[in-house]
């Protein structure tokens, strides 16, 4: 008879402890090979345990995953990331000022949305998590629309029906978000199946957090993606933390999240997601694979959630304050900036000027949004509450609307 021996995983450090990531075996830059896109999954079973990296410590692009990217595109990516960070920090403060009910930041993870938004085409569709604002920024989604949505004011493009940050932007290839996690990854697979069914070459890309990968929805999506060879990319964003629970509570103590592909016959790549070029390269690889009919790929986007989970969260309660600083793979903005400077396509002055520009842009958008109104001070017409339940309202909604005198 064993004594009580139910094993409960524990992170390596809690508040007060020294943070450390020595337990993560991180392959060196250039170490992980680049298979051919037409290789079968059975020829790639080592990949889930590698790590696609391109930028080395000096900001040089090296190794088998190095590819040529137009510097204009790299600058576009850098801008999207910087814009995202500035905007999010500003919105976080707006929340503290009571101007919105909720905000959620993607600090440290901006490269994901930025790179993938630029790699993929206008007709491809992203099924995002709530940390994918950089996707919209990279496609120049109007900042004022974001602000109005976040303030739930009269001009909210979602008519006050949805929690702040849960955008929907079809024309920008950005699928409707919702507060429940995990349940849209299968929609992305269905979208890709529809694309194949219709003979289109468009693909979909879907995201899920490493914590949320424990939902059955995730494996169901992988199964359908595999069975029907859906032209899709599925991504697990492993930022090491769910809310207060570390990746080990999602199964991350014993294997990688990319390895989930193996059980479904889908190639699984791990990607340094703080490395803009690695993201670019791996996403292009998977997109090409999907477009050419070789089916879906699973990407584990390896990163760290620097900010609090959301405005409802205080991470100092469950992890060392210094943990973000100890993340061994750096900051995505700093790294891409370093690279661009190194290849002579960027400099500190231009960077400072860009930051100043965006700062102004953000301020102005917030000001305009505030002029329309902030939470509780302005909202869309109440009749909007009754619209969109169905295409055409039925008697229940009509009667209730009348009861409210609308």
């Amino acid at each position, binding site marked *: 008879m064993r004594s009580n021996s139910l094993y409960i995983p524990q992170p390596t450090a809690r508040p007060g402890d020294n943070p450390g990531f020595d337990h993560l075996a991180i392959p060196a830059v250039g170490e992980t090979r680049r298979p051919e896109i037409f290789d079968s999954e059975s020829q790639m079973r080592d990949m889930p345990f590698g790590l696609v990296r391109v930028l080395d410590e000096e900001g040089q692009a090296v190794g088998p995953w190095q590819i040529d990217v137009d510097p204009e595109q790299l600058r576009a990516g850098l801008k999207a990331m910087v814009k995202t960070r500035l905007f999010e920090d500003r919105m976080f403060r707006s929340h503290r000022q009571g101007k919105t009910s909720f905000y959620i930041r993607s600090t440290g993870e901006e490269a994901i949305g930025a790179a993938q938004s630029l790699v993929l085409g206008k007709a491809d569709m992203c099924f995002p998590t709530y940390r994918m604002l950089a996707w919209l920024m990279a496609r120049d989604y109007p900042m004022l629309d974001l602000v109005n949505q976040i303030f739930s004011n009269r001009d909210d493009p*979602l008519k006050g029906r949805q929690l702040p940050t849960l955008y*929907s932007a079809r024309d920008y290839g950005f699928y409707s978000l919702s507060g429940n996690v995990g349940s849209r990854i299968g929609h*992305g697979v269905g979208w890709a199946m529809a694309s194949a069914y219709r003979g289109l070459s468009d693909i979909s890309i879907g995201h899920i957090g490493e914590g949320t990968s424990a939902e059955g929805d995730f494996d169901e*999506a992988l199964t359908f993606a595999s069975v029907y060879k859906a032209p899709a990319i599925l991504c697990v964003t492993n930022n090491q933390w769910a809310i207060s629970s570390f990746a080990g509570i999602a199964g991350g103590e014993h294997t990688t999240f990319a390895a989930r592909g193996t059980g479904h016959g889908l190639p699984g790549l791990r990607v340094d997601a703080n490395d803009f070029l690695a993201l670019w390269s791996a996403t292009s690889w998977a997109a090409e694979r999907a477009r050419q009919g070789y089916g879906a790929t699973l990407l584990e986007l390896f990163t760290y959630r620097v900010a609090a989970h959301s405005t409802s969260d205080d991470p100092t309660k469950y992890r060392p304050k210094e943990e973000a600083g100890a993340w061994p793979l750096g900051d995505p903005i700093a790294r891409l900036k370093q690279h661009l400077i190194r290849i002579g396509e960027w400099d500190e002055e231009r960077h400072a000027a860009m930051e100043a520009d965006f700062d102004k842009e953000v301020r102005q958008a917030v000001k305009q949004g505030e002029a329309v109104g902030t939470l509780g001070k302005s909202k869309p017409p109440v009749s909007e509450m009754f619209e969109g339940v169905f295409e055409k309202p*039925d008697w229940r909604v009509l009667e209730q609307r009348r009861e409210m005198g609308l």
Partner: protein
Amino acid sequence: MVQALNSALDTLLTNDPDTLIYGEDVGYFGGVFRVTAGLQEKHGLARCFDAPISEGGIAATAIGMAAHGLRPIIEIQFADYILPAFDQLVSEAARLRYRSNDEFTAPLTVRSPYGGGIFGGQTHSQSPEAIFAHITGLKTVIPSTPYDAKGLLIAAVEENDPVIFLEPKRLYNGPFDGRHEEQVKSWAGHPAAEVPEGHYTVPLGKAATVREGGDVTILAYGTMVHVALAAIEESGLDAELLDLRSIVPLDIDAIVESVKKTGRCLIVHEASRFGGFGGELSALVQERCFYHLEAPVARVCGWDTPYPHAFEWDYFPGPARIVAALRKVMEDIDGEL
């Protein structure tokens, strides 16, 4: 009814390349109840195909397809097995239009054999309509005849919103009036068994007056329409019988009109009574017809137990229980428990 449904699907696949069908065993085999028989062969592999045993995955992918612009028709093999897809249908399909301000919509149809009467035991017999009726953003349809089944199914698929289409499996191969001891009847000869070729629709939200009468109104849907009709005959009463056909949207006008005329109302459904859709119907009727009511609105339903295999006919609200309830509803006073 199986042939009528098959004809509806055939018509849809023929007319609209954006429609496609998938579900467990619906492809080569044609479905465990044969509703999709022949469709893969006729329309091609990708128009009617087998799915993994993953009701959640079936629903999720269908929502994605529908958002893309297709009109997927998915089959859940038994309504009891919709539950693994419940979150997808409620949190996603039902809410997509609203939350995205019409940017994305989910025009999908979920077909599922439903209800009891085939000795299927607990997990092949349940009637979960009430839990769908409560969900804002979902429509729920339940046909009772082959003619309606085809017309309603085509209408459901052509809706631009998600529809739960529950097929009373005990009616697949013939009408069933609840007299289970009697020989099984086929649809042949039934007036509503004549099903036109090609395209026609029966609109959602319109009840059918199966029988006019002045004594009492019976509200029913699915199998219970036939059972109620048998009970009316047995009772000798001049009852009016409404077949609701869809419970969302609900034909409230037809209900109110009938009850105001008769002054009495009995609701019947197979599902367990407590918290069932009969509660909503009863509430609506008394809210809108209170001063016309001469007796309490009554309900005859499945008992508040799980569906019990060997006691199928004890659980099932058959003609005898309906007749007894009718008699009670006709008593003027002392009907109160």
